[in-house]
């Protein structure tokens, strides 16, 4: 059967993530209670996998790397429709940069089984690098296509795709097995169903650490990261804001005056 692996990430809820700030004095992160949710674009990745499953039949496995709390995100993926879930979780994985994250995920994927297609969201809402997909593909020695906005067809071990570029698209053909990263335009992710939630309760999520995926602690997490954060500095504000007050019409008129003063209206 066609084997699909979907990589998902638990991220701080993007609606509330702006609450995470640096303390200007201690220069450490002030993490308010921001709940973890599934990275929005990873929902599109999962939806793409489920669409392929419905069309040609496939087995869909979700894999994630993160703290043990991320298990609820993997469960959610199963409730949405994935068949199987794996969470790579180990204190040694903490502090990973892109390189070490992609390396660890690729080791997890190698352990799962042979695959035809790996699907990732184009980027995560918290780090937004877009690198993890392509780097996983490199570690797995498979080709990658990024920013997929349409899956045209799967035929004879080839996938034909449309990908986003500035003011247009590219038509791309890729040989399977491959890894693709997807954009929001690709599909509209389905909602959770009640029966899905019931089904997911019976599923056991595999929890794998360093020993399970056969990697040394030296190669993962902060130890395995080529790049490191050295400082985090608060930014000095450059402008003084004058508040425009009054009722709505007054505020609108005063704003128009400012635009006129600056020669813009």
């Amino acid at each position, binding site marked *: 059967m066609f084997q699909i692996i979907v990589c998902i990430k638990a991220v701080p809820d993007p609606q509330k993530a702006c609450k995470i700030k640096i303390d200007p004095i201690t220069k450490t992160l002030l993490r308010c209670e921001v709940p973890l949710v599934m990275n929005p674009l990873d929902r599109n990745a999962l939806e793409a996998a489920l669409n392929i499953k419905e069309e040609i039949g496939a087995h869909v496995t979700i894999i994630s790397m993160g703290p043990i709390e991320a298990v609820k995100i993997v469960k959610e993926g199963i409730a949405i429709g994935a068949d199987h879930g794996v969470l790579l979780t180990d204190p040694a994985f903490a502090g990973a940069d892109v*390189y070490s994250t992609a390396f660890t995920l690729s080791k997890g994927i190698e352990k799962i089984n042979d695959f035809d297609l790996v699907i990732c969201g184009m980027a995560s809402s918290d780090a*937004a690098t877009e690198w993890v997909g*392509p780097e996983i593909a490199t570690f797995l020695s498979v080709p990658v*296509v990024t920013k997929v906005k349409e899956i045209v067809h799967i035929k004879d071990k080839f996938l034909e795709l449309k990908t986003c*570029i500035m003011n247009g698209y590219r038509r791309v053909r890729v040989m399977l097995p491959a890894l693709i990263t997807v954009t929001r335009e690709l599909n509209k992710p389905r909602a959770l169903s009640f029966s899905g939630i019931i089904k997911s309760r019976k599923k056991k999520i595999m929890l794998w650490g360093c020993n399970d995926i056969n990697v040394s602690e030296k190669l993962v997490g902060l130890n395995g990261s080529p*790049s490191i954060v050295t400082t985090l500095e608060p930014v000095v504000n450059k402008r003084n804001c004058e508040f425009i007050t009054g009722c709505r019409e007054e505020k609108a008129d005063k704003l128009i005056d400012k635009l006129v003063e600056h020669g813009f209206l």
Partner: protein
Amino acid sequence: MKNSTGPVWVIVDQEDCQILPVSLQLIGHARKMANKLDVDVEAVLLGNNIKNNCNCLFEAGSDRIYIGESHELNLYQPDLYTDIIVNLSKEKCPQIMLFGSTIVGRELAPLIAAILQTGLTAHCIDLVINDKGIMEQKIPAYGGLMTIVCPEKRPQMATVAQGVFSIPDISHKQKGEIVRLKIPILNTRRVEILQIVRDQSNDLQLETAAAVVAGGAGAGDIDGWNQIVDLSKVLGAALGCTRPAADEGWTDLETMIGQSGKMISPEVYIGIGLSGELQHMVGISEAQLMIAINNDPKAPIFHQVDYGIIDDCKEFVPVLIERIKSFRKHSSILDCRKCSS
């Protein structure tokens, strides 16, 4: 001998044989870093029929250009590009390798970084050589500026968006060394770009617009967003967005302003229903007039603008549109009177 610790590389990006401005901006900045390190700047240019366009790479500050020309390279081909750059990098050992945050750069940079087993920092807003000769890579994070370094692995790799650095105004030299690369033959082509299709869009270009209206998650829903769209039209301003607004699906990701999107320098900027996260704000360089509309008086945006209006944008924007329309009508009547008198 100069190159004791390796040159600074810029991987040049071209579209339809035209070199993109971001590549010249990067070479200009690479020149400054290379002077501090006392090494060469080298550009790598891949494509077809591109040799005639490479003088600008010398003028921007390159000492040497590696050119790979072949009809095989007419369109970006990931396997071939990766193969060429990785092999050349293993031979020449650059200490720094820079890419534009372009469609190609964003895909190619991580492919190369993973093979070379080195770090790669996304969408930097500054690159500085420190006293130890290491490149400090600055990115906005959590309302502050984060410094990332890659202390041991080489090359140190980063991508930078167009507009972060300016095109150098002094032309350094007219000529330098051109090195032609042998193009390998790959037996299997795993990925093939078959065709590039471009839409003809009539939208105002964000990068060149005098006025920009940007909307964020505070628009609330698609109706709220459409009001912001209407306001931009009434003002004749280009429309931009923050990442949350693009994630909501209200508008195209291509109109995103900021670190991983567009860098703009309008005369007037109006930010509506957006909190003023640094990732967005770094995309707006020195506008003459900055205005924010937000219902949260504590939103960081109010520290970064000249005028602020505390209001629910869904309520306020329609009123503003009506007042602008009536102002226009009024002033055009005045103008007519002036003409007839």
